[in-house]
């Protein structure tokens, strides 16, 4: 299965291990993620005003690329655009929703884009997790596991943009289960966290890192109380806040103990037997000692 894929800026810089691990995991499941040609930054956050059309142009331009890939024969009638980064997913899906329900807005954007082909409203923005749940299915995914994550207590962290607002979210906004199901399929143990969809502070990490570090503390302790060894996420900004900001958390909360933060795809890659592609050397808090202790890495896995 060939699917068009939108990486977004951060997956090319801080979150390279997110992309590489996802590619490996997808390939193992028979999915080829084809990067959009000439993609551009989506804008990271949506404009929430009713009078702002301009700020949706960047997102829509990326959707035009999916149309072009179909026109150019790179894809065959495949209009589902796969996104890994939760924030980009939220922005692209919101803009898509707005223009497909508002013809005059779509018109304005199309005429603004001038020589760019018109966007026809045909693209469906999907998060990679949705493909795992709805296309592959957790049963099939379970069968693809070669290195079950036995004994690893994994706590899902959804954050905001994967779940809210409801019309964009990929799961129940109040009691999501998609990551839990994934963890179980990979052979790991789920450690619940009452703060699994509490905002981490997002872009306040620029200029107000303390606010973020406080949330980081609350979220990590919430997971730890439920026995978590590690937290997984699908948002590179959440990952930065939960992972890198632990340095500050440590200063603010004496006695705080670090906990590794991973992208869900890193654990998929590990469970599928692609230890190198999992990119554990790219995380701020080094997860390798933990994974070794659990006997999950450093062992020969048959490919």
């Amino acid at each position: 299965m060939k699917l068009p894929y939108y990486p977004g800026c951060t997956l090319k810089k801080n979150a390279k291990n997110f992309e590489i691990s996802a590619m490996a995991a997808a390939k193992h499941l028979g999915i080829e993620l084809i990067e959009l040609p000439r993609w551009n930054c989506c804008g990271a956050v949506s404009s929430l005003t009713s009078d702002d059309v301009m700020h949706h142009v960047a997102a829509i331009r990326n959707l035009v690329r999916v149309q072009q890939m179909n026109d150019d024969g790179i894809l065959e009638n495949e209009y589902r655009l796969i996104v890994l980064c939760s924030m980009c997913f939220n922005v692209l899906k919101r803009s898509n929703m707005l223009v497909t329900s508002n013809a005059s807005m779509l018109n304005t954007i199309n005429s603004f884009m001038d020589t760019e082909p018109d966007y026809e409203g045909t693209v469906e923005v999907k998060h990679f997790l949705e493909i795992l749940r709805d296309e592959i299915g957790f049963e099939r995914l379970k069968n693809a596991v070669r290195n079950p994550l036995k004994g690893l207590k994994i706590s899902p962290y959804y954050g905001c943009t994967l779940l809210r607002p409801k019309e964009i979210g990929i799961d129940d906004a109040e009691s999501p289960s998609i990551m839990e199901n994934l963890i179980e399929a990979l052979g790991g143990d789920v450690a619940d966290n009452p703060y699994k969809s509490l905002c981490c502070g997002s872009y306040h990490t620029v200029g107000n890192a303390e606010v973020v570090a406080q949330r980081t503390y609350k979220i990590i302790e919430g997971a730890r109380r439920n026995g978590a060894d590690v937290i997984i996420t699908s948002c590179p900004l959440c990952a930065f806040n939960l992972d890198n900001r632990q340095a500050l958390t440590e200063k603010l909360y004496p006695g705080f103990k670090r906990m590794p933060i991973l992208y869900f795809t890193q654990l998929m890659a590990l469970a599928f037997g692609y230890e190198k592609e999992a990119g554990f050397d790219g995380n701020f808090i080094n997860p390798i000692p933990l994974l070794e202790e659990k006997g999950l890495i450093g062992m020969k896995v048959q490919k």
Partner: protein
Amino acid sequence: MTRIGVYVCHCGGNISDVVDVEEVAQFASRLPDVVVVRSISHMCSESGQKAIIDDIREYKLDRVVVAACSPQFQGSTFEKALIKAGLNPKMVEMANIREQSAWPHYDIPDKATEKAKVLTAMAVEKIRKTKPVEREAMKIGKNTLVIGGGIAGIQASLDLANAGFNVYLVEEKPSIGGHMAQLSRTFPTEDCASCILAPKMADVADHPNIHLLTYTEILEITGSIGNFKVKLRQKPRYVDADKCTACGECEKVCPVSVPDEFNLGMTARKAIYLPSPTAVPHAHVIDEDACLGIVPLRCGECAKACEANAINYDDTPKYINLDIDTIIVATGFEIFDARKKPQYGYGRFQNVITALELERLIVESAEGHFIRPIGKDIAFIQCVGSRDKQVGNLYCSRICCMYATKLASLLKRADPSRDVYVFYTDLRAYGKGFEEYYRRAQELGVKFIRGRPGELQEDPETKKVIVRVEDTLTRKIIEKKFDLVVLSVGLVPSKGTLKIAEMLKLPRTSDGFLKEAHPKFRPVDTPIEGIFIAGTAQGPKDIPDTVAQASAAAARAMALMNKGEFELSPIKAIVYEDKCDGCGECIDACPVDAIKLNGKASINAAICKGCGSCISSCPRDAIDLKIFSDEEIMAEIESALKDKKENERRIIVFADDMCTYTLADGVGTAKMGYPANAFIIRVPSSSRVTPKMILKAFELGADGVFLGECEEAVSPFPSTLKVIKENVEKARIALKEAGIEPERIQYSPFVTVMFPKFVNLIKKLNEIASKEIPEEKRRKLHVLEVIE
């Protein structure tokens, strides 16, 4: 040739100060068939009525026109006068020159007088075409089916039975009693709920006029008032209720334990069980799903233990057919499923329970049964599942404020050292004695805090529940740990309510509950004749309101059945058999399934509501209404457009009787002006106005046509707006074809208070209609076929 008397009323100056009544009278005397004309100060007074009666006798009048106020106001007065004079009451027509002329156009008396003349002419032309309608009656028996054995069904059944009517009370559970049987005490009096309910339940069981059918489901209901056919299935009880003494020996030997639904699953019961301590019938029942096996028998212990020999493993379902005259739907409510608000942790946190569970805890602990601790620090969270767009329930459940106040008071009184909080958004203590009861709770020390928590957390060690809430009066965030959090869950329609609504085609309001025929004046009637509603099936309500409604529903049913026959409304559709070719188009058009095809269409007058939706569906003009007939309305249209001067514009406004006509009366009463060239034609529903009528109006000189109709929520007829929309579309296409602007036809739903909307829409249409329509374009309409 008819003989008509016309009476122009001064209304003590209300009319005559604006309208030149003598000129109207002069004008009327020249109208066809008019034999006598009088102008009288107060037509509705006894002397006014006497003038009519005397004239009918002296001049041998067979028809009367009263040019006065709204027929909705005084119509019945003059109908009675006609009956006194020996005429058919339908032979009087009112020209509404007060609400439609003198009042709205008070500042333009000349135009008001001209309009009054036209209105009077319209009434005269209409009454010339009116045919006497004979009173039609149907026989009706005395059998009522009451669906649902909660307090509503119990009360309705007892009232009917005590008045000598025959009641079949059907309850799907093995005992009657409903939710009330589960409650601790009732607010605001704090009576023990089961103590006041149990005697009523016993009365039901003993009453010779009540046939109690518990454990029974309704399979099918067909027919109509006076002739409902009901099919029932009574589940096998496997225990002979007459022999069973409810001694409970069988329970002791039964090896199967399952959650007890009466205690909401907080305790266990056996597979053979007594549904509740006060169950009626007071007998055990075997839950065949839980039992180890009846066919083939796998255990048989209970039969061995039963001294009364009441257990019968060979019991089978019973199928029962009933002939029923009236039905009362009392199918009740269910509590909102608190799991739909996962942020409150119900089902996940052991110390979060629903208010109904607390009711059971209080009852059981009063009887010495310990189920779980209640604790010292207790919080109530209001509006769970009510007033919440996120779960789709916008309505207030009405009882939660008071039941929480009651439960909080009971807990506080039982142990004053308890710290009891109620977190509310608005506290609604509107009923008799409620405010005083709320005050007493505050005296007891219950703390009412204004704020709605977003989510609850559980302390992982102590399992206490952490409530975090904004005290919106101080804007401070409060955080406190509670031993118990009680969710004040709202009410939703029961599955039974939904099932019966579908079976009987009863309309529901946007909240999902059953819709009454009129929210003010027919609160326990449904739009279907002979079917009534009582209790929470109609909407959330407390016990006194439920009982009052149940008695009202019983009284309404009795009023129908008591005389042994009931009169059908004269506004009914009729089929001209010579024209009908049996195509069946009308069958789908009828929103209440009143039309059957027996070679030709035939209308069940008992079901027909007289909306007229079927008329425009008939390709052969074979359907009409008996009153508000095609002929009458066409006569009004013609006369409204007669003698139209050059440069004059006229608009025809069709107004449904229930909403738009009343609304126009209100606009007039408020002396709000609207274009005086708008002439209102009263119809039962604008859905009876066919595309042909609309086009005919344009052909005859109308410059605009407006159709007003009740909003769906208050309409006595289901889905008429759809028909109106279709008819308007068809007529617009034809206008367009003739080169006339299709926007000259407008329609809108109304409720009776939308004064500015009505005025603005008529003004807007008047603007659209201000351009002249060339005569040749109007003539084109004559030859145009209405496009189907």
